[in-house]
């Protein structure tokens, strides 16, 4: 150390220090460069998705929603609707729409999930809006089903019926039945308010509440719902059940009574 210190005024000392500094910079660069490279990769894959989505959009969507998503007389503007809206509309097959009408119905989806993600990326790039939820946001397992039921009855049941069987609205519009709807789509519908459904943003209905509602629907209205009481007659409510009992139940009893009395037991039929 004393030796080194004694030579600090040597003419070559500056050169040595410079070499050390260069080596340190190079080493640090080598240590950090890969991370930077990956970041650049991700950004470019994101822009690739947007590019790809733009191409899909131009062929599949632009005729109604306009070449830049600005909307036209046939379809609303998509600026600011967010990726969640695209994921819902295209993921449930509602978009692309088959024909104009009171309401666009759910049908078989025609884009793959990868293509939907690309379309979502493109539409999200037009203006910020609700983001497609991650699985941890909508996964109903372990959520509070009872709380979900209460929230459903307060916020959703007026249109979708108490167990999500759906119901009619005005002029041919309707609230669709929610049997076996993917919890992700339930979440996205609450977030974005598709068609005439009002939205329920996180400020009004927090993320956890949305999960509870998805869990409630999964419990009461899916194809593996456990029904202690047996056949639920469409789950449309007590009026329908009463009508069914009066018309078909009582009707069947009357028919049987008439049959018993009308069929003669005589040996000689007249």
């Amino acid at each position, binding site marked *: 150390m004393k030796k080194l210190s004694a030579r600090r005024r040597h003419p070559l000392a500056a050169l040595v220090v410079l070499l050390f500094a260069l080596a340190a910079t190079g080493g640090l660069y080598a240590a950090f460069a890969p991370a930077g490279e990956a970041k650049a990769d991700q950004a470019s894959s994101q822009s690739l998705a947007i590019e790809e989505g733009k191409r899909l959009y131009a062929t599949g969507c632009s005729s109604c929603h306009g070449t830049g998503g600005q909307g036209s007389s046939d379809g609303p503007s998509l600026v600011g609707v967010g990726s969640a809206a695209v994921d819902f509309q295209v993921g449930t097959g509602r978009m692309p729409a088959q024909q104009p009408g009171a309401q666009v119905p759910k049908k078989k989806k025609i884009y793959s999930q990868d293509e939907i993600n690309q379309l979502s990326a493109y539409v999200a790039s037009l203006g910020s809006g609700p983001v497609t939820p991650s699985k941890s946001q909508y996964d109903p397992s372990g959520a509070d089903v009872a709380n979900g039921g209460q929230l459903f009855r307060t916020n959703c049941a007026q249109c979708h019926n108490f167990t999500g069987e759906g119901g009619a609205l005005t002029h041919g519009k309707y609230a669709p039945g929610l049997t076996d709807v993917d919890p992700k789509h339930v979440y996205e519908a609450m977030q974005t308010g598709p068609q005439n459904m009002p939205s*329920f943003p996180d400020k009004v209905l927090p993320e956890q509440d949305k999960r509870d509602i998805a869990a409630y629907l999964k419990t009461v209205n899916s194809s593996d719902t456990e029904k202690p009481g047996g056949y639920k007659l469409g789950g449309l409510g007590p009026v329908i059940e009463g009508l069914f009992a009066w018309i078909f139940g009582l009707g069947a009893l009357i028919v049987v009574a008439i049959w*018993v009395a009308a069929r003669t037991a005589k040996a000689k039929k007249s």
Partner: protein
Amino acid sequence: MSETGSHENVSDEKLPSAQENGHGAVATANDPFADPGLPPHEPRIQDIDEQAAKRSERVVAMLFTVSMLATLGFIASFVTVPVDKYVHIWPIGNIGALNFALGMTLGVALFCIGAGAVHWARTLMSDHEMVDERHPVAAEQETRAKVMEDFQEGAKESALGRRPLIRKTMFGALALLPLSGVVLLRDLGPLPEDKLEHTLWAKGKLLVNENTHEPLRPEDISVGSLTFAMPEGLEEDDEEFQKEIAKAALMLVRLEPEDIKDKRELDWSHEGIVAYSKICTHVGCPVSLYEQQTHHVLCPCHQSTFDLSDGARVIFGPAGHALPQLKISVNNDGFLEAQGDFEEPVGPAYWERRA
């Protein structure tokens, strides 16, 4: 009997040779209203064929036996099937195994008793037609005279006609007695007074989100969303909660201010946020089927439709008047607050309603 029909089902030799014709005159062309009497009695196959009767007996006994077995099955399934076991049965789906087993066995047990009884009565019990003449409604002359006589005697012995003081006070007592029942009707409840005209909303009360129980800020409510609010201070475990929320229930939506057609609605809104009573003005159902593109609110009970962009006026259905609007603004802390109570009673009309 040989005039009517042929013997298709039973061979002649099995039929009793001498069947009596029905009694009474036969309607003739001269007298179309003559009593046609009973048609001749027709035997059943069980009456003439002992084999057939035996078969019927066995069928009835089998139905009753099935019923017994089903009842035993009911008891057995009650004991053995656990209450939380579910089975998949097409086309019903996943249903509770216990309820299904109990219902099926009890149904079979009851049905078989009924079917057995019907089959027994139709094939084996006596089926001879019997005539039961109607009796005159009036009592016999003798009985009527006796009753009148007894009545007269009773009236004379009680001296009701001779002592008018007793007669009059008795009628008075009997006439007054029902009043005690009428007075009790007052206890059906306190009079409503002006409770129907007021809700919990008052100046400065914050609008609390029904989902989160947090006070609402204007920025929480976006265009196209639907939010339900209740007045600050009302808790779900309050004794009076149902009574109060039934009047105070509020729905909040945000419109673009230029979409609001009604001048007063715009004045009473805050940045396009309008607050309306959730209680239908027809018969008080909760209206909240909100269509965010048309701004129409529909009532699920009788399809009354209100236009929230035009003072919630009625555009369809039986409702008599627009939904009451709550005047709102923002307080110094940035929370939405009511500017007072509803100006008119919420819900359906009633006799004493002023507005």
